[in-house]
């Protein structure tokens, strides 16, 4: 089959981007979207052109590296599927696909379809730790967790941090991501001791990053390749206001959003530091 890929090309993070159309012939319907880009890149390299930059790692739909907009929908039209798992048989012969990177102030562009998602890392970092006793391994089943509770925690923990929720949200809000991360630990007994602090810290970090606010419209959960339910956002909201009410000190500190790379930073950062 033949497809036309209309791809956002941007040389560098501060460069001006534009769409360029590439016809791709001999697309195998069993190819994934990323393999289709691989084929295109092969031909671009043969012609001496710059290949299209895109993020990928496991290509099994579980790492969260890949992801871009296909015709205005994050990860393309198939529900619960990342672009690496999206096969080309779901498109029609001769169709034009518009590939665009996630667009959000919190996800500055790096190149072509690659964006910088370190804001997510900082939210995770703000979450801190859960207490685990050292010493001998405890006996199995000392902490009982019901199947339904474990399932709910697993549903939230399925989040791979790909950023589709932010990309799909008209406000570019990270509520679904942060909610999933707060919920998957808060639901389990092991995560309860630090629940309040985790909610305060992660929500604080989410708010100092340039994400928008949640308007409860549900685009995020529709775009989520792991189908994280909207329920995690309400859990975040509940944990946050309860923790804010109970809070006795002002120990919540956030990490300065750093969107520059260490070489071109406006902050005084050691250029040799690994990020």
């Amino acid at each position: 089959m033949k497809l036309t890929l209309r791809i956002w090309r941007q040389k560098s993070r501060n460069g001006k981007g534009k769409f360029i159309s590439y016809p791709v012939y001999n697309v195998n319907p069993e190819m994934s979207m990323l393999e289709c880009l691989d084929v295109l890149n092969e031909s671009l390299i043969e012609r001496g052109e710059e290949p299209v930059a895109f993020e990928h790692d496991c290509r099994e739909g579980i790492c969260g590296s890949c992801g871009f907009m296909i015709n205005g929908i994050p990860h393309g039209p198939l529900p619960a599927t990342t672009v690496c798992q999206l096969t080309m048989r779901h498109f029609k012969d001769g169709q034009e696909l518009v590939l665009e990177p996630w667009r959000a102030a919190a996800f500055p562009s790096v190149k072509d379809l690659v964006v910088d998602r370190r804001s997510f890392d900082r939210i995770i970092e703000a979450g801190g730790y859960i207490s685990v006793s050292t010493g001998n391994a405890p006996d199995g089943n000392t902490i009982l967790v019901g199947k339904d509770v474990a399932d709910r925690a697993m549903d939230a923990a399925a989040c791979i941090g790909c950023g589709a929720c932010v990309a799909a949200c008209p406000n570019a809000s990270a509520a679904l991501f942060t909610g999933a991360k707060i919920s998957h630990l808060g639901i389990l007994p092991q995560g309860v001791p630090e629940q309040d602090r985790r909610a305060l810290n992660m929500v604080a970090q989410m708010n100092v990053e340039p994400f928008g606010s949640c308007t409860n419209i549900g685009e995020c959960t529709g775009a989520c390749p792991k189908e994280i339910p909207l329920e995690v956002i309400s859990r975040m909201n509940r944990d946050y206001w309860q923790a804010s009410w109970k809070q006795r000190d002002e120990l919540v500190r956030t990490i300065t959003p750093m969107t520059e790379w260490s070489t071109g930073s406006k902050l005084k950062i050691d250029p040799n530091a690994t990020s």
Partner: protein
Amino acid sequence: MSATAINSQLRAPSFWQSTNGKKVVMAVTGCILLLFVIGHLLGNLLVFAGRARYNAYAAFLHFDDTILWIVRIVLIIAVVLHITATVQLALRNKRARPIGYSRKEAINSSYASRTMYWSGPIVLAFVIFHLLEFTAGYIHPGSQFIRGDVYHNVAAGFSVWWVSAWYIFSLCLLGLHLRHGIWSMFQSVGYNHPRHTPLLKKAALVIAALIVLGYISIPISVLAGFVK
């Protein structure tokens, strides 16, 4: 992440400064305004009980001016907080996506939820007009505003076709606003349940529809000649 960046820490945003906190404020103030909308509807449906009872209800509301103003101040504070939070969040949301998509599909959201930024300001413009027409009496096209004779004011006011049309249009938008707002307020304060939330969404639709039907029955009855 380098060590320097970790050491330079920002103060955490306060409850009001956080987007989540503002949404809780919007939920609570929205709930107060919803209760007013329901109470206001129930009271004004007394227009169908005749001139004497309707005017008696209006007089009852003015039973004590201090109490009336306390209620009004609570409502004004709720409106101001609701709008302040919305405007601040909307500005933040605009900044959160400086470069828009060339193409973007809505796949999961309701029409009502996507038009909250439109339905809200139009309803606000309507509320101001409504207060000037029926509370203050500054704008009362087609007839003389008579303080205390509420029945006359309503019947005369709605007999002007464009007043009624504007009223019906605005109330439909209010219904759209409530269709999302009634269930969304629960989500914002942290209540979502896989069994209850779908019911809540249906209930929001039914409540919003009943409110719209209840309110627009008044101008329609005036135009149809049932209320003179």
